[in-house]
Structure formats: structure tokens, C-alpha cells
């Protein structure tokens, strides 16, 4: 049994659904209650890997970082040693999508070789036309960036996919 551990971080503005995405991914649960994350919360999820190479499973240590507000920036120290980052935005709040670029710069500033996945969350609140519009409006044609994924922690849409894809890239 070969296990590889990887650290990934959740980055985004406050209230975009970072903690909810983790809860959906790790605990298979969703709650409408908003609980603000203070500092850091660490979760662990073991992702079994297909029998392709010699690694049997990937242990993801997911650092849920306190959301960025205009009063408080994300602590870059927490991003250190992170193989990947999940940048989350709220599709109902356009300013959170605008901030994706800032988060990218912050992460690549700390981990130039890291991988990024972009999650546009709360898509359950949009109809199908709006979804397509949101997804196409974001131009992120850069290497080491996956997505954007239209996710919903509430319905579970794309949640496993985004984590799994990020994990694959980090291992490759």
C-alpha cells in the first residue's frame, strides 16, 4: 500500500462556499447555515487511485483558509508547501469572480510550480443560460490552471470532479 500525501488549500473571498465544498467532498453533507471559518481548518480525504501507477491512494490534506475580506487578506504563509489550490468564487457575486486573478497571483507567488483549479460555486442558483454565460465569460488560458468548473456544494455538481482532477495533476 503506497500512500502519497498532498496539501491543497481553499482560497477565495468570504462566503463563496469553500467550507461547503469541503464538507460536500469529505463528509458528503451540505448545510445552508453559514459558518465563518476562523484561521485555518484542516480536513483529510483519502482518494483511492485507479491502478495505473504504483501509488495506491492519495491522502489529501485540505487547508480551508479563512475567506478574504476587504479588511483581511489571505495569509500567504498558509499557502506554503501546497501542491495545489482550489480558488473558489460565488457566481452570484461578480466581485468574487473578479478577485480570482488576485488569488492566482498570490498562490503562484508562493508556489510557482503548483496547480490551480477554479470553482465557480453556487451554480444551483443559476439557470442553464446564465451558467453557460458565466463559464464562457472567464478567460483563463494559462498552464497549471484547471477549469473553471461550475460547482454546487448544495447539489454536489462537479465537486468530486474538481478535487479529483486537481489531485491527478498534482500527482502527474
Amino acid at each position, binding site marked *: 500500500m*503506497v*500512500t*502519497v*500525501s*498532498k*496539501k491543497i488549500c481553499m482560497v477565495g473571498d468570504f462566503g463563496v462556499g469553500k467550507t461547503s465544498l469541503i464538507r460536500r467532498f469529505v463528509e458528503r453533507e451540505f448545510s445552508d447555515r453559514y459558518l465563518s471559518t476562523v*484561521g*485555518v481548518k*484542516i480536513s*483529510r480525504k483519502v482518494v483511492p487511485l485507479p491502478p495505473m501507477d504504483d*501509488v495506491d491512494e492519495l*491522502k489529501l*490534506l485540505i*487547508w480551508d483558509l479563512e475567506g478574504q475580506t476587504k479588511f483581511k487578506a489571505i*495569509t500567504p*504563509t*498558509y499557502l*506554503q*508547501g*501546497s*501542491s495545489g489550490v482550489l480558488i473558489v468564487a460565488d457566481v452570484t457575486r461578480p466581485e468574487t469572480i473578479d478577485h480570482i486573478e488576485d488569488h492566482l497571483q498570490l498562490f503562484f507567488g508562493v508556489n510557482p510550480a503548483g496547480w490551480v483549479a477554479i470553482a465557480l460555486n453556487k451554480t444551483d442558483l443559476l439557470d442553464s443560460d446564465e451558467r453557460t454565460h458565466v463559464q464562457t465569460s472567464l478567460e483563463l488560458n494559462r498552464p497549471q490552471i484547471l477549469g473553471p468548473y461550475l460547482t454546487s456544494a448544495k447539489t454536489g455538481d462537479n465537486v468530486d470532479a474538481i478535487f479529483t482532477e486537481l489531485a491527478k495533476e498534482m500527482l502527474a
Partner: protein
Amino acid sequence: MPVSPDDSTAPALSQHSALSTVDQSPQGNDFALGELFQFLTEKDVRPQVHAVAPAVAPTRNDVKSALTTDEAGERLRQLLLDLLDIEAQQASANPEDSAGEQVWQLRLRQLERQCRDPRVMGQVIFPIFAVLLQKKIAQSPEEIIPALALIIDRVIETRSQSDRTALSKVLATTIPGAISKQLGEAPNEVIQAIAPAMGKAITEQVRLDRDAMVDALYPVIGNTISKYMGEVVSQINERVEKTLSLKGIMRRLSLRWQGISDAEQILRDAIPFRVQAVFLIHKNSGLVIADVQQSGSQALEADMLAGMLTAIRSFAAECSTDSRHQSELTKIDYEDFQIIMEVAGYCYIAAVTQGDPPGNFSIKLRQTLSSIILNHGYGGLLEQFDGDMRRVPDSIPQLLTELLVAPTVLEKPKVRRRSLPVGLLVLLMLLGIPLGWVYYRHWQKQQVILAVDEAMAANPALALYAIRPRIQGGTLILTGKVPSPDLREEAGMVALEVAPDLVLANELLTVVAPPDPEAIAAEAQRLTQSFGQMLGAMLTSRYDRANQQLIVEGGAIAPERINPLAESLRQIPGVQSVLLTLSGDPSPTAQRLYFNPNSTIIAPQEQTQKLEPLVAYLQANPNIRLQIIGHTDTSGTEKINRQLAPQRAQVVKDALVQLGINGDRLMVAGTIAPPPQVTESDALWLSRCVRFEVLN
């Protein structure tokens, strides 16, 4: 009855009050009025209600006591009479409709209603109700139980509201029993029911009566505490005993130097230090590179713990006010355990420990981290650790296990070992130098004494006597006994020669031992024979015990040659004088020539001292002819001796011929028998000779 407009609301208000008074009214009339009122209400005859109500209202406060059977019967009768009065009035009001039959029918209906009215009926059957109920319960209790079951809770509730004290009194006797029974049958239910309130109950009790609580818990807590304290005390005793050992004293001294008090150390020892888990954590990512944990204890979530620790470290670093100086978090202290961290460039060790960590532990942590970095740091393993456990060599967990198993044993025990022998060496030196000096001096003295002993033994005159030398301070003391002052002096001289640096104390006693005649005779004989052989003369000695005189007899020997013998003999203890009785002028023909064993060669001194005087004698007396007789000793074979004996005689004849003597005058013979005056007990050399006999 007149109804005032002001009383328009009164009937509604009094309606229920009137109802409530009915069964309690002591007055027959009042009761009848109530019953009537009830009846009219059910008939919904509003005007009549209005009519009777004012009359009822004033009576309600007079209601007091219960009814009796007689009263009930009386009331029923009264009621019927009243009803008849009403019917009569109605009949008189309508004269044209005055048929008696109608009145009676009405009355009958009234009676029927009365019978259906439970209240009235209840009053009727009340006296016998208890009897009925008992009978019913006895006959078919299962019918009564469901009927009562429906309302029993409400009964209790109502009763508890109206008179809580009375109900409590009734239930008080049954509740303890009920609880005991339930505890026996379903203890968990009771426990779960009571448990949530326990804490609050105890708190409340403490608030209400602290002393009672203390008394209640004292036997339990007192024992627990005394047991615990007993254990601590016994541990402390053990420590104290250890402290009094040599090792303990050394340790105490070292602790004193570190400024740790005895009490602190004893307590520290009583709560043993234990390392529960050790993690090697990648500093940036917080990923676990390696972790080891004590088996048996509950395993810690290494990943989560490492992550949170790293986050806390990052947080603490962010909060650090001085950005130029990067400070590290080294310890997180909880009440009963702590996390001790040792940080290097790319990784850090976190040890979860219990008890007070000894000073050695931080050194050990540092040593372990150093070895890990030295052994594995250069390959980039630590810097570029990416969570791949396959790249972590086994030696890292092994090093961490060391911390777990022997948290205080340092990697280089030599350092510690050396420090102990230095102390011991100093101690040994302190004890050893004087001891060594004493031994050296003793050895030196022994050497001198041995040398003196050897010198005494080497001196033939002193060797016989037990002379004991010893050294005291710078003085050489000789003790023992010698037979003469001369020997005493001589012993002193010998000792001084050996040890010239010492002062001599000659404590030898001169003791004249009673001479042993046999020993004297033997010694004298030995000396005499030795001299005789040396001089080529046959000498004998005998001891005259009475005069303590030695008498030496033998052939003619010049006095100057025999004197040394006399001198030597006089030295023999117990010999007062020596008498030499030697033949005066010995004839040359009486001489005997002695030979060495198995030899036919004439010794030079024999030639000059014996043969040459013989030649002169023969030349002066040309008529003398000599018989030359050769002898041998008894050693050797007879055959050889038979040849040897005449050969020796022949050799002597040849020598005489060569010295100018005519060979015709000399006859030769040989014999293996000893010569005259020599016996087999005499020395052998006396037989190895050639002698002469004068032939006429």
C-alpha cells in the same frame, strides 16, 4: 321577580358560580333552586334563568358542607313539590287548558328527566356507590381498570394542582420503593434519567449545605487521596533512598549546580516523563514525513495534528511583531501534556510528551534532528518532500523511535561516561596517592630487608643463624641470636654494607648455645679432611667433650701450612682449644701420592712436595729399594680398577726413574683394596693413592 336593567350581565356571570355551589349547598331550598336552575338551563329556558338567578346569587357564599343521605332524599322530594307548584301556577294561568292529565304528563316527563340527570341520580345512588364499586371491582376488575385508566393521570394532575402537599404525602411512601424496583429491573433508564441532573444536584447541595456534602464524600475522597498520596510518598521514599546512594549524591550535586531543588526533582521523578509520539513534519506543507507512537496508547491523528501544528506555527510567525527576526514556536503547553518542537530549516520534530521533560530531552531532540539532517538533508529529501512516503528511508523512523524508547539517553554516551571516571579518577588519585606512597615505602623497605637477608645468607658464618632485620623509620633493626660477639659485630657490618643510608640498631643477642658434641665432631672432621686433601696429608680429628678440645692427628705437615686449619677449627662454636698431634719429621717413604678419580697423572704439588724429597732420600740411601703400591677407590668397575692400580704405581716408578733413580731398585704392584689405615667409610680420595714400602 323583578330584574333590574343594571343586573343584565349578572346572570351570565353567576351562571357558573351557581352551578358550582349546587352540590355543596347545605340548604335544601337553595339546593332545589340550583337543581331547578340546572334543569332550566338544559331546557334552555332563558327567561326563567333570569328569573331565578338573582335569588341564587346571594346564597352561593353560604355553601359549606357535604350532603347526607337523608338530606338528598328530602331534596328530591322538595324538588318534586316545587315542580308541582310550577305546574299549578301554569295551570292557573291558562284556565281553559286546565286538563289534569296534562299536568300529570308533564310531571311524569319531569321525573323521567330527573332519572336521566346523572347529578340527581348520582345523589340518589351516592350512599350505595362505594358498595357498588367494591362489588364491581370484585366481579370484573378488568372493566373498571380501562375506565379509570383513561383519567387516572388527569386525576393525579388535578389533585396535585389543588393540593400538592397531600398528594406528595400520599406518593412519598411509594416513590422510593418504585425507584429501587426500577433500578433493579432497568437500571440504565433510571441512570439516564437522573444523570443529567447529577452535576447540578451536587452543585445545589454544596450551595445549600457544604458541610453535609463534605462529610458525605469524605470517606471516598479521603481514601482516594490518601491512597494517591501514599503512592506518591512511597515513590518519594524510593527517590530519597536512591538519592542517598553514591549515584544519587553525584546526581544531587549536579542538580544543585543546575539550580533544581530536591523537592522539585523528587516530584519530577514521581511523575515520570514519557514521550507519547514523535513526528517529523515538513515545515512548509505540514505533511508528515515520519511518525512513531507509543503502542498501547490511543494513536494520534498524525496528519491532522501535523497540519494544525504547522498552521499554528505559521499563525504565530505571522503574529510575530518583529519581521526581521524569525522566531520559532518551540513548545505548546497543556495541563497534562505538552508538544515540544525542534525546528530545522525544512522540517521540524514535534514530540508529544507527558511529565516534566528532563534537560537531556531537548539535547536528544536536537541530536536526533541533526542526525536526520546530516544523513538525509543533502539529497533534497527534506526540502523537496512532496508527500511521497516511498522516498522516506527507514532510518528516519528508527531515529525517531530512539526518542520514544530512550528519550534521555544521549547519542554519545562517551561524554557522559568520561565525566564519571574523571570524578572517580580524582577520587582514586586522592585516595591512591597516599596509599601508593605507603605501599611504595613498604615495598622499598621490603627490598632492603630482603637484601640484608640475602647478605646474611651469603655470609657462611652468619647463614646458620636466624637474624631478622626490620626497618622502623630510618633505622635498620637487627634482631635474633648469634653465638658470639664477633658474629654479632659481623652481622652489623654486613647489614651496614647493604643499607648504608640507614641507622643501624643492632639488637642481636649473643647467646652461647650449649655445644652439640656430635655436631662439633662432624664439623671438625669435615674441616680436617678438607684441609688434609688440600695439603695431601691424611688428617683425622676427634672431639674431647670434657675439655671441649679438638685433637687433630695425622702425618707430618709443616706448622705454617697446618695453622689455618687450627684457626678454622677454633671458630667452631663449643671448641675452646685445638690440639694438633702431627708426626714430627715424616719420612718421605711414608708419603702417599693422591690421584684424581680415574687418573694416573701425578699432580704438580705431589711431584714437588713428595716425589722430589723421596728422590733425595733414595739418592742419599742408595741401598734402599722400594715397593711402589698403587690403590684405587671403590668407585668404578673392578676390572678398570685392577688395571688402574698398577698403572698408578708404574707412573710413579717412571717419574722416579726420570728423576734419576735406578729402576731396578723400584718394584711395582697394584691393588683395589684401600691402603692401610683407610677404611671404606673414609673419603674416597684417601684410597686413590700410591704408597711406598721399603724393601730390605
